[in-house]
């Protein structure tokens, strides 16, 4: 294949990858990102055609595509935010009930048996041992004093031993 065909092939590959992402991913944000990837493929094809004909129409069209893509991204993200405020989830299948009443239910993914991956426990970094005593004449009901006391309440008197620290880091990163 020649020069022009190579660029067109790359544009086609980008378009197909974007379409694949749009069809398969369930996260609304990743779906919109995939749509933008499809726009990249189309832009690359347009610029290639313009370059092939020594004309500037391809670049002009792509600039307009850029404008529309920016509008589309802004509107789509605000719509996603509105949907997220309703459903507290970015899953597109949450909205699969929104269909015509006579249509069959869509092919949904079976989530049974899958559990959400919980975040790892935080690493137990060494902390400074609290030094000194709390002065007696401090106002115990001052929120700042209570905040300071709550900050140091669960601090161990001794810093964790190097062995404990190593085990904590190991559990965090290996599991």
């Amino acid at each position, binding site marked *: *294949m*020649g*020069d*022009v*065909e*190579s*660029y*067109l*092939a*790359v544009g*086609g*590959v*980008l378009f*197909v*990858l*974007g379409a*694949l*992402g749009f*069809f*398969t991913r*369930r*996260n609304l*944000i*990743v779906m919109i*990102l995939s749509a*933008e*990837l499809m726009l990249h493929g189309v832009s690359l094809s347009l*610029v290639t055609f*313009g370059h*092939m*004909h*020594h*004309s*500037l129409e391809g670049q*002009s069209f*792509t600039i*307009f595509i*850029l404008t*529309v893509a*920016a*509008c589309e*991204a*802004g509107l789509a*993200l*605000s719509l*996603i*935010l509105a949907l*997220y405020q309703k459903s507290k*989830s*970015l*899953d*597109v299948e949450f909205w699969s009930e929104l269909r015509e009443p006579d249509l069959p239910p869509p*092919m949904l*993914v079976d*989530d049974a048996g*899958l*559990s*959400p*991956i919980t*975040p790892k426990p935080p690493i137990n970094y060494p902390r400074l041992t609290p030094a000194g005593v709390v002065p007696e004449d401090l106002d115990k009901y001052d929120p700042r004093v209570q905040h300071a006391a709550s900050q140091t309440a669960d601090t161990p008197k001794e810093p964790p031993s190097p062995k404990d620290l190593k085990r904590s880091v190991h559990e965090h990163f290996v599991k």
Partner: protein
Amino acid sequence: MPRASRLPKLVGLILAICGAGLLASRLNPANGQVVQTILFSTFSAIAILSAILMITNRNPVYSALWFAIATLGVCGLFLLQSAPFLAAATVIVYAGAIVVTFVFVIMLAQQSGATIYDQTSRQPMLATIFAFLLLAALLGTLESSTAEDFMFSDRSAAVAGANVLSQAANPDQLPTMMALGRSLFGDYLFAVELAGTLLLVATIGAIAIAPLRRRGTL
């Protein structure tokens, strides 16, 4: 695609390597422009690899970052096609603005930890088969085209002349930035104004849609 089982990852990797090798062997332009060939291979490899990583990553933040890298690869290809203004504008708009907005929305709307819907995908096998059928059709059409199809000839000039909406291509017109500006603010002046209006309307729409109604922001 994100999936529960472990085996298809290896199979997919082998298939991807085979496909990339096949594509690279077909794509090499044989006209001896070594630098252009190297740059083209680098940029297209960056774009395609980051696109694959974008649609397969389970973390949407990483997806957005891979999309930025894919944008940079596409901008490199724009530069090779003598479109420097377009490359700069794409970097600014996509990598600078759109990706940052995406990451902000992910921060606003992301739940702690990895969610179920990022771990699984809808009909991955079926979608992959049909997507690659589409890709095969596109590449097959490209493969069957001859070099004359892509040359500016008298025949294509006649076809373009017969179309009312098209302008005759000017082979002397150099793709400079000045010519692009003249084309935008001369031939496409109404379209530019329309695009500006569209941006304004989209801004108003985004402001109207996004915030919570009960907080009384609008």
